[in-house]
């Protein structure tokens, strides 16, 4: 039997982000009214090394890591009537925005990491500034 505890993994990530993460805001825009759904959270951003810049990855892209804790607590993005029901809306998707100290960064791709059915970590790539 596995002794991996998803909640412990989330707590470890939260502790790490509290120590080295940057304050940021995750934003999703809805509809022609551009209605915002926002959540404040901590995020780690890092640039790509030269050997990693290949395929769709550009020089100005950055990798990000965030925790699901603030997203679950909000909850973000919250209900939206025109969203499909078979996807996890908590995972940032293309054109979502991360507002950080270095400016507005646009999400290019993101994916969640699940352990025993629990979302424990979100990683992805942003572009901008």
């Amino acid at each position, binding site marked *: 039997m596995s002794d991996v505890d998803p909640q412990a993994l989330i707590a470890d990530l939260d502790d790490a982000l509290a120590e080295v993460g940057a304050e940021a805001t995750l934003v999703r825009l*809805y*509809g022609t009214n551009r*209605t915002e*759904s926002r959540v404040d959270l901590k995020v780690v951003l890092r640039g790509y090394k030269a050997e990693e810049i290949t395929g769709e990855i550009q020089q100005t892209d950055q990798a990000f890591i965030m925790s699901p804790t603030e997203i679950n607590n*909000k*909850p973000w993005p*919250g*209900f*939206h*009537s025109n969203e499909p029901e078979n996807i996890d809306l908590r995972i940032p998707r293309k054109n979502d925005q991360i507002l950080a100290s270095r400016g507005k960064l646009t999400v290019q791709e993101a994916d969640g990491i699940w352990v025993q059915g629990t979302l424990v970590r979100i990683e992805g790539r942003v572009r901008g500034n």
Partner: protein
Amino acid sequence: MDNPGYKSLGVFDITTSDTIEGDWVEDLEGALACLVNVRFLYGTSSGSPSVKAYLQTTTDDEATVCDIACVLFEEASEHKILNFSALTPKTSQVTPTNKTLSDDTSVDGIIGNKIRLVVVVVGTYSSSTQVVAGINIR
């Protein structure tokens, strides 16, 4: 209340006659007060349409729901705010209603551990019409 703060009730795109149930905002055990913010972003419409936003709670884990507010919107953008207290005595028995509370009325003193918004649309609105709502729970 170990997790106070703003919680989104959702963004509802308003187009044709429909009943749209938002997700329950959960884990509200110990809540003492609930400040409700409901915005109606009006685009265009035809006929004599109406949008009723029912704020609902549950005291038995969704077995029954209870309307605690009904906010009526028609053909103009509006912004409505309500505040509820969990400490308001209810010594006269309250019979829960489900999407039948009278227009622009509310019932104070009933805050369960879950809250949601249900939007009932009658008529036709443009795709840019929305209801955006949230609560500040504490």
